């Protein structure tokens, strides 16, 4: 009887090599990029919340304001819809009249094309309730670069949301808001920028009881992107000098509250639709990698903030007192 052939012929060798290379490539591709991307992004489309809210149900007075801070929610996916639905449910029990968007409000396409998916549908209950929306420009390219496409994108966001400018100030009840465009090169770089000078002047002329600064890139963050280079050197002195109370930012997709520095509380609220890991730094008081938004209530000289998950549970609570009379934060 003829002995079995043990060597591979050309066809078998080719097929075996192809299969081996394919499996190795598949493993590298899956664990190196594809599966982490599926885990990190919010790609599965979701249904918009279907809630009826009472319009203008919030209170705004000389000493009272409620608002929500939400960052990086621009996916239109299930997770973004879950956060938006919880915001609408929170409105039912604790109405608020303002949503401060902390940037990155559109992923996976152009804002003009995805306006309905990433903004109008998720926020429809709040839009119908006539809640105001204000935007701090973000840069989901994660680079402080100006490109033509980036400029077009920002212009579209300003136009469709009715935002007065790339950086601007608004006043609601006892709170003055200062929205910055941290995507501008030079905001944190060497040499004074026009925006920093404007901020300094605007803060100096603010007479309201509370000063809240909103920008996309965080000054203090223990997350994946971390503290923005140059921010502590360039921006923080201005904030310290003008006695800002609260700084809200996004960019890192988690919740984090830092130890108050010179009476300023820094909060990262970037869990609008995705989550990234967060560690602990010397400046971290509370941090969690979770979907969330921050609900803030201001009443006279007290400000209380609550970070809320999509299921209604609380991540963190903090309380501040107005600058007059006492400095520092009380958690």
């Amino acid at each position, binding site marked *: 009887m003829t002995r079995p052939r043990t060597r591979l012929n050309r066809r078998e060798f080719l097929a075996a090599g192809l299969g081996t*290379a394919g499996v190795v490539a598949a493993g590298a591709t899956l664990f190196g990029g594809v*599966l982490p991307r599926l885990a990190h992004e919010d790609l599965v489309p979701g249904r918009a919340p279907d809630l009826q809210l009472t319009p203008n149900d919030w209170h705004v007075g000389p000493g009272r304001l409620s608002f929500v801070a939400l960052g990086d929610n621009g996916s239109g996916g299930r997770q973004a819809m879950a956060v938006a639905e919880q915001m609408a449910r929170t409105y039912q029990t604790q109405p608020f009249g303002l949503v401060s968007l902390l940037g990155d409000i559109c992923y996976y396409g152009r804002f003009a094309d995805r306006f309905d998916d990433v903004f109008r549908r998720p926020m429809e209950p709040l839009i119908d309730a006539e809640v105001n929306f204000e935007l701090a420009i973000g840069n989901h390219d994660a680079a402080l670069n100006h490109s033509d496409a980036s400029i077009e994108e920002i212009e579209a966001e300003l136009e469709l949301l009715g935002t007065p400018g790339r950086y601007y100030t608004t006043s609601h009840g006892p709170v003055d808001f200062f929205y910055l465009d941290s995507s501008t090169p030079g905001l944190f770089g060497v040499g004074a920028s026009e925006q920093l000078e404007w901020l300094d002047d605007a803060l100096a002329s603010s007479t309201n009881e509370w000063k809240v600064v909103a920008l996309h890139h965080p000054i203090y963050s223990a997350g994946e992107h971390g503290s923005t280079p140059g921010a502590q050197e360039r921006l923080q002195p201005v904030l310290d000098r003008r006695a800002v109370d609260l700084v809200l930012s996004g960019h890192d997709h988690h919740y984090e509250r830092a130890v108050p520095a010179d009476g300023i509380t820094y909060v990262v609220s970037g869990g609008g639709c995705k989550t990234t890991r967060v560690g602990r730094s010397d400046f971290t008081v509370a941090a969690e990698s979770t979907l969330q938004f921050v609900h803030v209530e201001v009443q006279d000289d007290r400000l209380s903030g609550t970070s809320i998950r999509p299921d209604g549970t609380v991540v963190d609570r903090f309380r501040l007192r107005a600058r007059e009379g006492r400095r520092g934060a009380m958690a």
Partner: protein
Amino acid sequence: MTRRQVDIAVATGYAVVCFLAVLAPALAVRWSVFKSDIEGVGGRDIVAASVIIGAAHAAVAWVRLRSEERTALRRSHMWIASLNALAVLSLSSSVLLLVVLLSFPDTHAAMANRGFPVVVLWAATQLVAVILAEATGRVMFWWLEPHGAEARACKWRVLPAIPRPRLLNRGPAAPADGSVPIPEVPVLPVPPTATERARPGRLVPLESRSR
């Protein structure tokens, strides 16, 4: 373990790997939710869809392997084809999903808001991946196996061939008196002796040869 048990165990292991390859994308999507310990975000439907498709594909792969074990002229053909099928499955079950979801976000969002179940899109994409993998495995196996005359001439079959059905005619009937027939012993030709081989051309009758 017997050889059959080893074959079954290896085929089962391969089927489990295929199942996990189909389930991996759904688990990845649910991972961030699971890590954050958040309820109400959803995702169980796509996990369920992946479990169903993965289990069905694992069963099909297992049956294919067991069938190929019996028919393959070389066992290596079966495993080379399965390796290629696994590579296609691993890549297509995840990459195809990523491409489909990233390429048409507007269309998908509009569909979702009109009430179209997104899980159908997910399941359809994974079904395409499974079909591609099965087709790859079967075509590769067919391509590797020799066909026609080459297959008939192949003498190194690893496993015995599938037993052929018995013929209806089983030979002469048994005697009516119950006696056991004495089978005829065939007479084999006696090989020529050395002397005879040395003198070719001389024929010696069978009866005169000494044994």
